[in-house]
């Protein structure tokens, strides 16, 4: 029966963790090497004059956290988790993994997919059952151990974890859902997701990060997502981060692509007190492509640092990064979006945009799009805007009877809507619309309904008694309120 480790990170804690897990020697060595790197790497402090997210982490009291809080896999799940599973973003799913603190407590996979050779398991088990795959892919080329001080800490203390392998040619239609839950105060959770999509396979993966515990004593989620996209494979990865304000979050996500492989990242960040997020698209294969759609909404004294990298390393690769966020309260967000075009990456097309809307006088946003171009046949562009709500737009809506506060909320909806349209998962779009409305003070439940109706439900034609047709014209002449 595994036991929680006392607070504090140390070499002996690494050894104790590995011993409790009865891990093979190679994994212990990997952890110890990572611990060495962690100890040798200076704490990152950020640039002079930035908004201070890294500096906040440098003052974070890591030594007060327990590095390992396991859960009993056989016990009943807390009500909050059970409820969240019922309200999950995915109702029809091909598989499920639930991680609670340091342990995976539930794993399910469609039987037919199992027969086709799909592997979905916790990473602890994969270390024992698929050692070759884990040795080859775990924190080697996608998110290497030494990416940052915090990825090194992750590699030393990772626990639980999700391992997904999709064999050649298998296309998984329904999404696979993963939920990561933190319900222990003063704990550190190092969740790891490793996805290997073999040639011509495809998968939709949805990961939700939530927390449920009371009190000010903060916990840490230091997670890593590694996606290997083989020839002509496609991975869609959606992440909704809705952690409580007593959770600090460091997240590193990267996808590496072979020829013609492609990835869609969808990142929705709403929660967490301080978040340090690095998302990468590594385009090493000819003709590979990456798309990143990001939405965030911050409030109170939240601090985000979001860093994206489109790394073009081969011929004819495409990347598109589109991030939109709204800040309120005294929150601060810094966004650094990098497009890197390496010398061999001819015929690159890369686009990046970042737009933020400030709802209060006390919030601050900083946006730094940058380009590093080493090839000459390149089409690359970036744009960033930061602004406040337009007074003329407000007046227009108010003249139509809508009170000022709601008019602001409607303009925020309009600000987000084009990027929400890019999110493939309807439930995620709907959940985000509701979360966005709820986060704006004074909002009414029905506003969220009206917005969702207008965007999602109007396509259903002729289902209600009020539907009328226009002068005997055929039904398709009726008002069809579709998504645009």
């Amino acid at each position, binding site marked *: 029966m595994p036991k929680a480790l006392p607070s504090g990170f140390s070499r002996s804690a690494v050894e104790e963790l590995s011993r409790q897990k009865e891990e093979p020697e190679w994994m212990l060595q990997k952890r110890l090497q990572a611990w060495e790197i962690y100890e040798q790497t200076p704490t990152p402090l950020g640039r002079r004059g930035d908004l201070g997210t890294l500096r906040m982490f440098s003052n974070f009291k890591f030594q007060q956290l327990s590095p390992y809080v396991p859960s009993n896999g056989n016990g009943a799940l807390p009500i909050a988790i059970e409820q969240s599973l019922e309200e999950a973003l995915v109702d029809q799913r091909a598989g499920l993994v639930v991680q609670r603190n340091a342990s995976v407590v539930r794993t399910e996979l469609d039987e037919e997919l199992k027969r086709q050779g799909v592997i979905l398991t916790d990473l602890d088990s994969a270390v024992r059952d698929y050692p070759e795959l884990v040795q080859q892919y775990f924190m080697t080329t996608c998110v290497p151990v030494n990416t940052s001080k915090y990825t090194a800490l992750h590699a030393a203390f990772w626990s639980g974890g999700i391992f997904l392998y999709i064999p050649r040619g298998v296309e998984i239609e329904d999404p696979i859902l993963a939920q990561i839950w933190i319900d222990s105060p003063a704990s550190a959770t190092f969740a790891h997701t490793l996805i290997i999509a073999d040639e011509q396979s495809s998968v939709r993966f949805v990961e939700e990060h939530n927390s449920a515990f009371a009190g000010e004593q903060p916990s840490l989620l230091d997670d890593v997502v590694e996606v290997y996209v083989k020839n002509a494979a496609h991975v869609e990865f959606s992440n909704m981060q809705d952690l409580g304000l007593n959770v600090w979050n460091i997240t590193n996500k990267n996808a590496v692509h072979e020829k013609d492989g492609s990835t869609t990242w969808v990142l929705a960040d709403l929660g967490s007190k301080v978040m340090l997020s690095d998302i990468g698209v590594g385009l090493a294969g000819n003709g590979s492509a990456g798309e990143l759609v990001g939405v965030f909404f911050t409030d109170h004294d939240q601090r985000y640092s979001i860093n994206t990298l489109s790394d073009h390393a081969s011929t004819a690769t495409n990347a598109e990064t589109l991030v939109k966020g709204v800040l309120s309260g005294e929150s601060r967000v810094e966004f650094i979006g990098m497009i890197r075009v390496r010398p061999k990456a001819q015929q690159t097309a890369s686009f990046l945009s970042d737009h933020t809307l400030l709802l209060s006088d006390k919030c601050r946003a900083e946006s730094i799009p940058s380009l590093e171009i080493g090839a000459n046949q390149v089409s690359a562009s970036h744009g960033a805007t930061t602004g406040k709500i*337009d*007074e*003329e*737009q407000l*007046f*227009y*809506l*108010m*003249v*139509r*009877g*809508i*009170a*000022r506060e*709601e*008019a602001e909320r*409607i*303009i925020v*909806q*309009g*600000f*987000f*809507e*084009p990027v929400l349209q890019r999110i493939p998962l309807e439930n995620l779009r709907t959940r985000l619309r509701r979360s966005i*409305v*709820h986060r704006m*003070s*004074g*909002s*009414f*439940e*029905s*506003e*969220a*309904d*009206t*917005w969702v*109706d*207008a*965007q999602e*439900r*109007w396509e259903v034609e002729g289902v*209600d*008694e*009020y*539907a*009328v047709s*226009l*002068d005997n014209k055929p039904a398709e*002449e*009726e*008002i*069809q*309120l*579709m998504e*645009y």
Partner: protein
Amino acid sequence: MESELIIKNLHANIEGKPILRGVDLVVKRGEVHALMGPNGSGKSTLANVIMGNPKYEVTDGEIWFKGENILEYSPDRRARMRLFLAFQYPMSIPGVSVANFLRRSLEAVREGNKPREEGENPTGQATKRRSIPPGEFRKQLQEKMRLLKVDNSFINRSINDGFSGGEKKRAEILQMALLEPEIALMDETDSGLDIDALKIVSESVNALRGPQLGILLITHYQRILNYITPDFVHVMYDGRIVKSGGKELALELEEKGYEWLRPSDEENGVAANA
């Protein structure tokens, strides 16, 4: 209650510069008033001030509507009293669909921002509010669209985003039809329209005309009055209404222009030696 809009001695500034210098005007339900005058005479300012645009500062005078002095009311409250403005330059609001916007607008104008139950008060928490079911809303919208011969595709688009000049004006009139105001201010609804669009817009206004609706039709040109016959014509010059009359006044203006109505400097309150 009488749905009268009464403007008394209205003075207003923009950025310290006086634009309205004592406007007096009464518009009743069922009447169509044309407000004419040269560019810069203050016609659009009057419409904006009546709706409470915060860009303008009212320095003197009163605006009464349905027996209440509405000067201190917010624009949305004025709208919920069933005062309407069709904008000269409607704002585009990308990402907000006409369907979403019009439903909320109709709910607000019809139901106010009252919570569903008496005594239930929105306290910053998400609360249920009176809302119009999507089907009922669609039915009402469809009726108005049919009446005004508005293309169905309007509804799928973002508010005024990428609309042509004519489409914007027709969208304004569609909103007017849906919201059923008691007094509507139409600010240069004819400007920027070619003759075909002008006919369509005029037909729409005529379709809405009736004893339930008072209209203040602001226009620079006489030509829209060939299609919409006003009951009264007023001429604005330098921030005041300098002449009022029947529909024949419009024809006289077409013939003689506005210059003959220019107030003398003395009348205008400017010192003779300035």
